[in-house]
Protein backbone atom coordinates (compact mmCIF):
# COMPACT_ATOMS: atom_id res chain seq x y z
CA UNK A 1 0.00 0.00 0.00
CA UNK A 2 1.51 3.30 -1.02
CA UNK A 3 0.31 6.85 -0.62
CA UNK A 4 -2.17 7.82 -3.27
CA UNK A 5 -4.68 10.56 -3.99
CA UNK A 6 -7.64 8.68 -2.51
CA UNK A 7 -6.37 8.12 0.98
CA UNK A 8 -6.76 11.48 2.65
CA UNK A 9 -10.37 11.13 3.69
CA UNK A 10 -12.18 8.21 5.20
CA UNK A 11 -15.20 9.14 3.11
CA UNK A 12 -13.35 8.94 -0.21
CA UNK A 13 -13.56 5.77 -2.28
CA UNK A 14 -10.73 4.71 -4.48
CA UNK A 15 -11.55 3.80 -8.09
CA UNK A 16 -10.97 0.16 -7.20
CA UNK A 17 -13.58 0.31 -4.47
CA UNK A 18 -11.35 0.59 -1.43
CA UNK A 19 -11.45 2.87 1.57
CA UNK A 20 -7.80 3.43 2.23
CA UNK A 21 -8.16 5.14 5.58
CA UNK A 22 -9.97 2.11 6.92
CA UNK A 23 -7.24 -0.15 5.60
CA UNK A 24 -4.58 2.03 7.19
CA UNK A 25 -6.47 1.73 10.46
CA UNK A 26 -6.22 -2.04 10.14
CA UNK A 27 -2.47 -1.64 9.68
CA UNK A 28 -2.34 0.08 13.06
CA UNK A 29 -3.68 -3.10 14.60
CA UNK A 30 -0.79 -5.05 13.15
CA UNK A 31 1.65 -2.68 14.82
CA UNK A 32 0.43 -3.34 18.33
CA UNK A 33 1.88 -6.12 20.44
CA UNK A 34 0.20 -9.48 20.18
CA UNK A 35 -3.10 -10.49 21.69
CA UNK A 36 -4.48 -14.01 21.52
CA UNK A 37 -7.85 -15.57 22.20
CA UNK A 38 -9.06 -19.16 22.23
CA UNK A 39 -12.22 -20.87 23.34
CA UNK A 40 -13.54 -24.26 24.27
CA UNK A 41 -17.16 -25.20 24.73
CA UNK A 42 -17.20 -23.76 28.22
CA UNK A 43 -14.23 -21.39 28.62
CA UNK A 44 -12.53 -18.52 26.87
CA UNK A 45 -8.90 -17.56 27.43
CA UNK A 46 -7.48 -14.18 26.41
CA UNK A 47 -3.75 -13.57 26.57
CA UNK A 48 -1.45 -10.71 25.61
CA UNK A 49 2.21 -9.85 25.49
CA UNK A 50 3.28 -7.22 28.00
CA UNK A 51 5.04 -4.39 26.30
CA UNK A 52 6.59 -1.56 28.23
CA UNK A 53 7.62 1.78 26.74
CA UNK A 54 10.97 1.53 28.45
CA UNK A 55 12.55 -0.39 31.26
CA UNK A 56 11.54 2.33 33.65
CA UNK A 57 7.83 2.21 32.91
CA UNK A 58 5.14 -0.34 33.65
CA UNK A 59 3.51 -2.24 30.82
CA UNK A 60 0.31 -1.21 29.12
CA UNK A 61 -2.91 -2.97 30.02
CA UNK A 62 -4.35 -4.68 26.96
CA UNK A 63 -6.98 -6.93 28.47
CA UNK A 64 -10.08 -5.47 30.09
CA UNK A 65 -12.99 -6.91 31.98
CA UNK A 66 -16.25 -5.80 30.42
CA UNK A 67 -18.49 -7.80 32.74
CA UNK A 68 -18.32 -11.00 34.74
CA UNK A 69 -19.02 -12.93 31.60
CA UNK A 70 -17.21 -10.84 28.95
CA UNK A 71 -13.57 -9.82 28.51
CA UNK A 72 -11.76 -8.02 25.72
CA UNK A 73 -8.14 -8.02 24.55
CA UNK A 74 -6.95 -5.22 22.27
CA UNK A 75 -4.14 -4.56 19.82
CA UNK A 76 -3.32 -1.28 18.17
CA UNK A 77 -3.93 2.20 19.58
CA UNK A 78 -4.52 1.34 23.22
CA UNK A 79 -6.13 4.71 23.90
CA UNK A 80 -8.79 3.92 21.30
CA UNK A 81 -9.09 0.49 22.86
CA UNK A 82 -9.80 1.91 26.29
CA UNK A 83 -12.55 4.13 24.93
CA UNK A 84 -14.22 1.18 23.22
CA UNK A 85 -13.89 -0.91 26.37
CA UNK A 86 -15.65 1.82 28.26
CA UNK A 87 -18.45 1.77 25.67
CA UNK A 88 -18.76 -1.99 26.03
CA UNK A 89 -18.85 -1.79 29.82
CA UNK A 90 -21.55 0.83 29.58
CA UNK A 91 -23.72 -1.26 27.25
CA UNK A 92 -23.26 -4.29 29.42
CA UNK A 93 -24.15 -2.58 32.65
CA UNK A 94 -27.20 -0.85 31.16
CA UNK A 95 -28.50 -4.19 29.98
CA UNK A 96 -27.89 -5.75 33.39
CA UNK A 97 -29.72 -2.91 35.08
CA UNK A 98 -32.82 -3.13 32.90
CA UNK A 99 -33.05 -6.89 32.53
CA UNK A 100 -31.15 -8.26 35.58
CA UNK A 101 -29.34 -10.64 33.32
CA UNK A 102 -26.06 -10.70 31.39
CA UNK A 103 -25.89 -9.15 27.94
CA UNK A 104 -25.35 -11.87 25.33
CA UNK A 105 -21.86 -11.44 23.80
CA UNK A 106 -23.14 -11.73 20.26
CA UNK A 107 -25.38 -8.71 20.75
CA UNK A 108 -22.63 -6.65 22.36
CA UNK A 109 -20.30 -7.35 19.48
CA UNK A 110 -22.89 -6.29 16.91
CA UNK A 111 -23.58 -3.07 18.75
CA UNK A 112 -19.87 -2.36 18.99
CA UNK A 113 -19.39 -3.00 15.31
CA UNK A 114 -22.41 -0.99 14.15
CA UNK A 115 -22.56 1.89 16.57
CA UNK A 116 -18.94 2.46 17.38
CA UNK A 117 -16.82 1.20 14.55
CA UNK A 118 -18.79 1.36 11.34
CA UNK A 119 -20.08 4.85 12.04
CA UNK A 120 -16.53 6.13 12.14
CA UNK A 121 -15.92 4.86 8.64
CA UNK A 122 -18.78 6.87 7.25
CA UNK A 123 -18.43 10.35 8.72
CA UNK A 124 -16.01 12.82 7.25
CA UNK A 125 -15.32 14.41 10.61
CA UNK A 126 -14.39 11.15 12.28
CA UNK A 127 -11.63 8.62 11.86
CA UNK A 128 -11.78 4.84 12.29
CA UNK A 129 -10.73 3.44 15.66
CA UNK A 130 -7.21 2.10 15.23
CA UNK A 131 -7.70 -0.93 17.41
CA UNK A 132 -8.70 -4.54 16.91
CA UNK A 133 -10.65 -6.19 19.68
CA UNK A 134 -10.79 -9.83 20.63
CA UNK A 135 -14.05 -10.14 22.56
CA UNK A 136 -14.51 -13.33 24.54
CA UNK A 137 -17.65 -14.13 26.44
CA UNK A 138 -20.27 -16.54 27.61
CA UNK A 139 -23.97 -16.58 26.97
CA UNK A 140 -26.90 -18.97 26.74
CA UNK A 141 -25.57 -20.58 23.59
CA UNK A 142 -22.11 -21.26 25.05
CA UNK A 143 -18.65 -19.70 24.92
CA UNK A 144 -17.80 -17.33 22.06
CA UNK A 145 -14.77 -15.49 20.72
CA UNK A 146 -15.17 -12.62 18.28
CA UNK A 147 -12.74 -10.35 16.50
CA UNK A 148 -13.91 -6.77 15.88
CA UNK A 149 -12.08 -4.98 13.10
CA UNK A 150 -11.63 -1.19 12.70
CA UNK A 151 -13.73 -1.50 9.55
CA UNK A 152 -16.78 -2.45 11.59
CA UNK A 153 -16.64 -6.09 10.54
CA UNK A 154 -16.70 -8.82 13.10
CA UNK A 155 -16.03 -12.53 12.86
CA UNK A 156 -16.42 -15.40 15.21
CA UNK A 157 -13.42 -17.60 15.87
CA UNK A 158 -12.40 -20.75 17.66
CA UNK A 159 -9.01 -19.14 18.19
CA UNK A 160 -7.31 -16.06 16.83
CA UNK A 161 -4.29 -13.83 17.25
CA UNK A 162 -3.79 -10.18 16.35
CA UNK A 163 -0.94 -7.70 16.56
CA UNK A 164 2.71 -7.96 15.66
CA UNK A 165 4.12 -11.42 14.96
CA UNK A 166 0.64 -12.83 15.38
CA UNK A 167 1.19 -14.98 12.30
CA UNK A 168 3.46 -17.23 14.33
CA UNK A 169 0.76 -17.66 16.92
CA UNK A 170 -1.89 -18.22 14.26
CA UNK A 171 0.19 -20.99 12.71
CA UNK A 172 0.46 -22.68 16.06
CA UNK A 173 -3.27 -22.28 16.69
CA UNK A 174 -4.15 -23.59 13.23
CA UNK A 175 -2.43 -26.82 14.05
CA UNK A 176 -4.23 -27.27 17.32
CA UNK A 177 -7.64 -25.62 17.02
CA UNK A 178 -9.65 -28.73 16.25
CA UNK A 179 -9.12 -30.01 19.75
CA UNK A 180 -9.99 -26.76 21.52
CA UNK A 181 -13.74 -27.29 21.78
CA UNK A 182 -13.25 -30.28 24.03
CA UNK A 183 -10.19 -28.93 25.83
CA UNK A 184 -10.09 -28.70 29.56
CA UNK A 185 -9.60 -25.29 31.13
CA UNK A 186 -5.99 -26.07 31.98
CA UNK A 187 -5.12 -27.23 28.47
CA UNK A 188 -6.71 -24.14 27.02
CA UNK A 189 -4.56 -21.90 29.22
CA UNK A 190 -1.47 -23.87 28.31
CA UNK A 191 -2.24 -23.50 24.61
CA UNK A 192 -2.70 -19.76 25.04
CA UNK A 193 0.67 -19.38 26.73
CA UNK A 194 2.32 -21.56 24.09
CA UNK A 195 0.81 -19.38 21.40
CA UNK A 196 2.21 -16.30 23.16
CA UNK A 197 5.59 -17.96 23.19
CA UNK A 198 5.42 -18.28 19.41
CA UNK A 199 5.13 -14.52 19.06
CA UNK A 200 8.17 -13.88 21.21
CA UNK A 201 10.50 -15.39 18.64
CA UNK A 202 13.19 -16.88 20.75
CA UNK A 203 12.91 -14.61 23.76
CA UNK A 204 12.58 -16.79 26.87
CA UNK A 205 9.06 -16.96 28.05
CA UNK A 206 8.63 -15.53 31.52
CA UNK A 207 5.40 -14.89 33.39
CA UNK A 208 6.26 -11.19 33.58
CA UNK A 209 6.08 -11.00 29.79
CA UNK A 210 2.48 -12.07 29.45
CA UNK A 211 -0.97 -11.43 30.86
CA UNK A 212 -3.52 -14.23 30.82
CA UNK A 213 -7.22 -14.03 31.64
CA UNK A 214 -9.91 -16.71 31.87
CA UNK A 215 -13.67 -16.81 31.95
CA UNK A 216 -16.05 -19.74 31.83
CA UNK A 217 -19.18 -21.40 33.04
CA UNK A 218 -19.23 -20.82 36.82
CA UNK A 219 -16.04 -18.78 36.55
CA UNK A 220 -16.33 -15.01 36.21
CA UNK A 221 -13.72 -13.14 34.21
CA UNK A 222 -10.46 -12.77 36.08
CA UNK A 223 -6.73 -12.51 35.50
CA UNK A 224 -4.32 -15.30 36.36
CA UNK A 225 -1.63 -14.25 38.79
CA UNK A 226 2.05 -14.41 37.95
CA UNK A 227 2.58 -17.55 39.99
CA UNK A 228 -0.06 -19.57 38.18
CA UNK A 229 1.27 -18.47 34.81
CA UNK A 230 4.82 -19.35 35.80
CA UNK A 231 3.67 -22.80 36.93
CA UNK A 232 2.20 -23.48 33.52
CA UNK A 233 5.34 -22.20 31.81
CA UNK A 234 7.46 -24.46 33.99
CA UNK A 235 5.59 -27.52 32.77
CA UNK A 236 6.95 -27.08 29.26
CA UNK A 237 10.01 -24.85 29.52
CA UNK A 238 11.85 -27.26 31.78
CA UNK A 239 11.43 -30.01 29.20
CA UNK A 240 14.74 -31.36 27.62
CA UNK A 241 16.58 -29.37 24.95
CA UNK A 242 15.23 -31.15 21.84
CA UNK A 243 11.64 -30.09 22.33
CA UNK A 244 12.58 -26.50 23.05
CA UNK A 245 14.87 -26.30 20.03
CA UNK A 246 12.23 -27.87 17.82
CA UNK A 247 9.71 -25.30 19.01
CA UNK A 248 12.08 -22.41 18.38
CA UNK A 249 13.05 -23.58 14.92
CA UNK A 250 9.42 -23.77 13.97
CA UNK A 251 8.76 -20.33 15.33
CA UNK A 252 11.64 -18.84 13.33
CA UNK A 253 10.58 -20.50 10.11
CA UNK A 254 7.04 -19.32 10.49
CA UNK A 255 8.05 -15.83 11.59
CA UNK A 256 10.29 -15.20 8.58
CA UNK A 257 7.56 -14.19 6.13
CA UNK A 258 5.63 -12.14 8.69
CA UNK A 259 4.55 -8.54 8.24
CA UNK A 260 7.46 -6.18 8.42
CA UNK A 261 5.38 -4.15 10.86
CA UNK A 262 6.73 -6.19 13.75
CA UNK A 263 10.35 -5.72 12.69
CA UNK A 264 11.70 -3.08 15.07
CA UNK A 265 9.70 -2.26 18.12
CA UNK A 266 11.78 0.90 18.41
CA UNK A 267 10.13 2.05 15.17
CA UNK A 268 6.67 1.74 16.65
CA UNK A 269 5.04 5.12 17.26
CA UNK A 270 4.66 5.94 20.95
CA UNK A 271 0.88 5.82 20.93
CA UNK A 272 0.80 2.33 19.58
CA UNK A 273 1.53 -0.67 21.75
Amino acid sequence: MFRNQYDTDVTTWSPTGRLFQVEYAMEAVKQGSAAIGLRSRSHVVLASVNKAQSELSSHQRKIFKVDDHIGVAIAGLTADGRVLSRYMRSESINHSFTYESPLPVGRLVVRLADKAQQVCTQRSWKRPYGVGLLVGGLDESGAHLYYNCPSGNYFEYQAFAIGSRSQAAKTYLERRFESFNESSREDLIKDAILAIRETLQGETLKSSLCTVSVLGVDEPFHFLDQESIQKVIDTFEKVPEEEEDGGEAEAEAAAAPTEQGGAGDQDVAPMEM
Partner: protein
Amino acid sequence: MFLLPVSFSINADYFFLQFTIPIDNGDSVKNAEADSQRTLYPYVTGTSIVAIKYKDGVLMASDMGGSYGSTLRYKNIERMKAIGKHSLLGASGEISDFQEILRYLDELVLNDNMWDDGNSLGPKEVHNYLTRVMYNRRNKFNPLWNTLVLGGVKNGESYLGMVSMIGVSFEDNHVATGFGNHLARPILRDEWHADLSFEDGVKLLEKCMRVLLYRDRSAINKLQIAKITEEGVTVSQPYSLKTFWEFKAFNNPTAGAEGSW
Protein backbone atom coordinates in the same frame (compact mmCIF):
# COMPACT_ATOMS: atom_id res chain seq x y z
CA MET B 1 -53.95 24.47 44.21
CA PHE B 2 -54.80 27.84 45.56
CA LEU B 3 -54.40 29.21 49.05
CA LEU B 4 -56.45 32.35 49.32
CA PRO B 5 -55.73 34.52 52.29
CA VAL B 6 -58.41 36.87 53.45
CA SER B 7 -57.83 40.32 52.05
CA PHE B 8 -57.34 42.81 54.86
CA SER B 9 -59.71 45.66 54.58
CA ILE B 10 -57.91 47.53 57.35
CA ASN B 11 -54.72 47.99 55.43
CA ALA B 12 -55.25 48.58 51.73
CA ASP B 13 -51.60 47.71 51.06
CA TYR B 14 -52.27 43.99 51.21
CA PHE B 15 -53.19 42.57 47.87
CA PHE B 16 -55.16 39.45 46.98
CA LEU B 17 -52.53 36.72 46.97
CA GLN B 18 -52.64 33.40 45.19
CA PHE B 19 -50.33 30.47 45.84
CA THR B 20 -49.82 27.61 43.45
CA ILE B 21 -47.47 24.96 44.69
CA PRO B 22 -45.69 23.48 41.73
CA ILE B 23 -44.54 19.89 41.78
CA ASP B 24 -41.17 20.43 40.35
CA ASN B 25 -40.29 17.76 37.87
CA GLY B 26 -40.30 17.87 34.13
CA ASP B 27 -43.57 16.14 33.38
CA SER B 28 -46.06 16.63 36.15
CA VAL B 29 -46.56 20.31 35.88
CA LYS B 30 -47.68 23.57 37.10
CA ASN B 31 -50.99 24.13 35.43
CA ALA B 32 -54.34 22.42 35.37
CA GLU B 33 -54.31 21.53 31.68
CA ALA B 34 -51.27 19.34 31.93
CA ASP B 35 -52.78 17.57 34.94
CA SER B 36 -55.35 15.92 32.75
CA GLN B 37 -52.50 14.29 30.84
CA ARG B 38 -51.46 12.07 33.70
CA THR B 39 -53.27 9.21 35.38
CA LEU B 40 -55.09 10.37 38.46
CA TYR B 41 -57.58 7.55 38.96
CA PRO B 42 -58.33 4.27 37.21
CA TYR B 43 -61.56 3.96 35.20
CA VAL B 44 -62.06 0.42 33.92
CA THR B 45 -60.45 -1.99 36.31
CA GLY B 46 -59.80 -5.70 36.61
CA THR B 47 -59.84 -7.35 40.00
CA SER B 48 -57.53 -9.94 41.52
CA ILE B 49 -55.02 -12.26 39.91
CA VAL B 50 -53.83 -15.36 41.79
CA ALA B 51 -50.78 -17.34 40.69
CA ILE B 52 -48.73 -20.25 42.02
CA LYS B 53 -45.67 -22.25 41.04
CA TYR B 54 -46.31 -25.93 40.57
CA LYS B 55 -44.39 -29.01 39.47
CA ASP B 56 -44.12 -28.23 35.76
CA GLY B 57 -44.23 -24.46 35.88
CA VAL B 58 -46.70 -21.75 36.85
CA LEU B 59 -50.49 -21.60 37.10
CA MET B 60 -52.36 -18.32 37.03
CA ALA B 61 -56.06 -17.58 37.47
CA SER B 62 -58.13 -14.49 36.79
CA ASP B 63 -61.75 -13.66 36.12
CA MET B 64 -62.90 -11.93 32.98
CA GLY B 65 -64.55 -8.89 34.47
CA GLY B 66 -63.88 -5.21 33.83
CA SER B 67 -65.57 -2.88 36.32
CA TYR B 68 -66.47 0.69 35.56
CA GLY B 69 -66.49 1.98 39.09
CA SER B 70 -69.10 -0.08 40.85
CA THR B 71 -70.73 -1.30 37.62
CA LEU B 72 -69.63 -4.69 36.31
CA ARG B 73 -69.58 -3.39 32.78
CA TYR B 74 -67.37 -5.70 30.74
CA LYS B 75 -67.53 -9.44 31.11
CA ASN B 76 -65.17 -10.72 28.47
CA ILE B 77 -61.81 -9.17 29.24
CA GLU B 78 -58.76 -11.42 29.06
CA ARG B 79 -56.44 -10.23 31.76
CA MET B 80 -53.69 -12.77 31.13
CA LYS B 81 -51.51 -12.79 28.03
CA ALA B 82 -48.51 -14.76 26.79
CA ILE B 83 -45.30 -12.78 26.33
CA GLY B 84 -42.68 -14.25 24.02
CA LYS B 85 -42.01 -17.96 24.36
CA HIS B 86 -41.37 -18.15 28.05
CA SER B 87 -43.62 -15.79 29.99
CA LEU B 88 -47.19 -15.08 31.00
CA LEU B 89 -48.38 -11.68 32.19
CA GLY B 90 -51.49 -11.11 34.28
CA ALA B 91 -52.73 -7.70 35.31
CA SER B 92 -55.22 -6.16 37.68
CA GLY B 93 -56.09 -2.49 37.73
CA GLU B 94 -56.67 -0.15 34.80
CA ILE B 95 -57.32 -2.17 31.66
CA SER B 96 -56.18 0.50 29.23
CA ASP B 97 -52.83 0.71 31.00
CA PHE B 98 -52.53 -3.08 30.74
CA GLN B 99 -53.08 -2.78 27.00
CA GLU B 100 -50.38 -0.11 26.84
CA ILE B 101 -47.99 -2.41 28.67
CA LEU B 102 -48.79 -5.16 26.19
CA ARG B 103 -47.79 -2.80 23.40
CA TYR B 104 -44.44 -2.06 25.07
CA LEU B 105 -43.80 -5.75 25.55
CA ASP B 106 -44.78 -6.48 21.99
CA GLU B 107 -42.07 -4.14 20.79
CA LEU B 108 -39.61 -5.65 23.22
CA VAL B 109 -40.30 -9.19 22.06
CA LEU B 110 -40.20 -8.11 18.42
CA ASN B 111 -36.76 -6.58 18.80
CA ASP B 112 -35.57 -9.61 20.67
CA ASN B 113 -36.75 -11.88 17.87
CA MET B 114 -35.13 -9.70 15.22
CA TRP B 115 -31.70 -10.48 16.66
CA ASP B 116 -32.34 -14.05 15.60
CA ASP B 117 -29.36 -15.31 17.52
CA GLY B 118 -30.43 -18.12 19.79
CA ASN B 119 -30.89 -15.88 22.82
CA SER B 120 -34.37 -15.08 24.04
CA LEU B 121 -35.99 -12.99 26.75
CA GLY B 122 -36.85 -15.08 29.76
CA PRO B 123 -39.38 -14.29 32.49
CA LYS B 124 -36.69 -12.74 34.71
CA GLU B 125 -35.72 -10.25 32.02
CA VAL B 126 -39.35 -9.33 31.29
CA HIS B 127 -40.08 -8.91 34.99
CA ASN B 128 -37.15 -6.57 35.46
CA TYR B 129 -38.00 -4.58 32.37
CA LEU B 130 -41.52 -4.09 33.69
CA THR B 131 -40.17 -3.07 37.09
CA ARG B 132 -38.08 -0.38 35.44
CA VAL B 133 -41.05 0.85 33.40
CA MET B 134 -43.41 0.97 36.38
CA TYR B 135 -40.92 2.65 38.66
CA ASN B 136 -39.96 5.27 36.12
CA ARG B 137 -43.58 6.13 35.48
CA ARG B 138 -44.16 6.42 39.22
CA ASN B 139 -41.26 8.82 39.46
CA LYS B 140 -42.91 11.08 36.90
CA PHE B 141 -46.15 11.03 38.90
CA ASN B 142 -47.85 9.39 35.94
CA PRO B 143 -48.21 5.74 36.92
CA LEU B 144 -49.52 2.83 34.96
CA TRP B 145 -52.30 1.89 37.31
CA ASN B 146 -51.71 -1.85 37.41
CA THR B 147 -50.41 -4.59 39.59
CA LEU B 148 -48.70 -7.07 37.29
CA VAL B 149 -47.99 -10.74 37.80
CA LEU B 150 -45.26 -12.25 35.66
CA GLY B 151 -44.82 -16.00 35.51
CA GLY B 152 -42.71 -18.18 33.28
CA VAL B 153 -40.42 -21.13 32.74
CA LYS B 154 -37.05 -21.09 31.06
CA ASN B 155 -34.47 -23.85 30.93
CA GLY B 156 -36.45 -25.85 33.45
CA GLU B 157 -36.58 -23.09 36.02
CA SER B 158 -39.92 -21.64 37.07
CA TYR B 159 -40.22 -17.97 37.82
CA LEU B 160 -43.05 -16.03 39.44
CA GLY B 161 -42.92 -12.35 40.30
CA MET B 162 -45.03 -9.28 40.85
CA VAL B 163 -44.72 -5.54 40.15
CA SER B 164 -46.99 -2.93 41.62
CA MET B 165 -47.94 0.47 40.19
CA ILE B 166 -45.34 2.17 42.34
CA GLY B 167 -42.58 -0.12 41.20
CA VAL B 168 -42.42 -2.46 44.20
CA SER B 169 -41.24 -5.76 42.81
CA PHE B 170 -40.46 -9.19 44.18
CA GLU B 171 -40.53 -12.91 43.43
CA ASP B 172 -42.30 -15.61 45.37
CA ASN B 173 -43.77 -19.10 45.12
CA HIS B 174 -47.30 -17.73 45.13
CA VAL B 175 -48.60 -14.23 44.50
CA ALA B 176 -51.93 -12.46 44.39
CA THR B 177 -53.09 -8.94 43.60
CA GLY B 178 -55.83 -6.71 44.96
CA PHE B 179 -58.33 -8.55 47.10
CA GLY B 180 -56.43 -11.71 46.44
CA ASN B 181 -53.74 -10.44 48.79
CA HIS B 182 -56.20 -10.49 51.67
CA LEU B 183 -58.38 -13.44 50.77
CA ALA B 184 -56.28 -15.81 48.71
CA ARG B 185 -52.79 -15.55 50.18
CA PRO B 186 -53.74 -16.90 53.62
CA ILE B 187 -55.11 -19.99 51.88
CA LEU B 188 -51.96 -20.29 49.79
CA ARG B 189 -49.70 -19.87 52.77
CA ASP B 190 -51.38 -22.80 54.45
CA GLU B 191 -51.92 -25.09 51.52
CA TRP B 192 -49.22 -24.39 48.93
CA HIS B 193 -46.30 -26.74 48.83
CA ALA B 194 -43.57 -27.41 46.29
CA ASP B 195 -44.21 -29.79 43.39
CA LEU B 196 -47.97 -29.56 43.30
CA SER B 197 -49.46 -31.63 40.51
CA PHE B 198 -51.46 -29.85 37.83
CA GLU B 199 -54.79 -31.08 39.24
CA ASP B 200 -53.90 -30.08 42.80
CA GLY B 201 -52.72 -26.70 41.60
CA VAL B 202 -55.93 -26.02 39.75
CA LYS B 203 -57.97 -27.15 42.77
CA LEU B 204 -56.03 -24.78 44.99
CA LEU B 205 -56.53 -21.87 42.61
CA GLU B 206 -60.23 -22.62 42.28
CA LYS B 207 -60.54 -22.63 46.05
CA CYS B 208 -59.00 -19.14 46.14
CA MET B 209 -61.12 -17.89 43.26
CA ARG B 210 -64.28 -19.20 44.90
CA VAL B 211 -63.59 -17.23 48.08
CA LEU B 212 -62.91 -14.16 45.94
CA LEU B 213 -66.16 -14.72 44.06
CA TYR B 214 -68.14 -14.82 47.28
CA ARG B 215 -66.46 -11.88 48.94
CA ASP B 216 -65.10 -9.50 46.25
CA ARG B 217 -67.90 -7.42 44.78
CA SER B 218 -65.99 -6.76 41.59
CA ALA B 219 -65.43 -10.45 40.85
CA ILE B 220 -67.61 -12.29 38.34
CA ASN B 221 -68.21 -15.99 37.94
CA LYS B 222 -66.36 -16.40 34.69
CA LEU B 223 -62.74 -17.30 35.06
CA GLN B 224 -59.76 -18.51 33.10
CA ILE B 225 -56.81 -20.52 34.29
CA ALA B 226 -53.53 -20.20 32.44
CA LYS B 227 -50.68 -22.65 32.56
CA ILE B 228 -47.11 -22.05 31.52
CA THR B 229 -44.55 -24.84 31.24
CA GLU B 230 -41.37 -25.44 29.29
CA GLU B 231 -43.53 -26.26 26.27
CA GLY B 232 -45.35 -22.93 26.30
CA VAL B 233 -48.45 -21.07 27.40
CA THR B 234 -52.04 -22.29 27.38
CA VAL B 235 -54.96 -20.18 28.54
CA SER B 236 -58.08 -22.17 29.27
CA GLN B 237 -61.52 -21.44 27.92
CA PRO B 238 -63.65 -19.39 30.31
CA TYR B 239 -65.71 -21.39 32.77
CA SER B 240 -67.58 -20.81 35.98
CA LEU B 241 -67.31 -22.19 39.45
CA LYS B 242 -70.06 -23.95 41.32
CA THR B 243 -71.32 -21.87 44.18
CA PHE B 244 -73.54 -22.66 47.11
CA TRP B 245 -76.07 -20.23 48.44
CA GLU B 246 -78.50 -22.54 50.24
CA PHE B 247 -77.48 -21.49 53.70
CA LYS B 248 -80.37 -21.54 56.09
CA ALA B 249 -79.81 -17.93 57.08
CA PHE B 250 -80.11 -16.86 53.43
CA ASN B 251 -83.45 -18.60 52.92
CA ASN B 252 -85.47 -16.28 55.05
CA PRO B 253 -83.16 -13.41 55.77
CA THR B 254 -85.73 -11.21 57.44
CA ALA B 255 -86.90 -13.91 59.84
CA GLY B 256 -85.52 -12.12 62.83
CA ALA B 257 -86.41 -8.59 61.75
CA GLU B 258 -89.62 -8.19 59.74
CA GLY B 259 -89.54 -5.37 57.24
CA SER B 260 -85.80 -5.24 56.85
CA TRP B 261 -83.87 -6.70 53.95
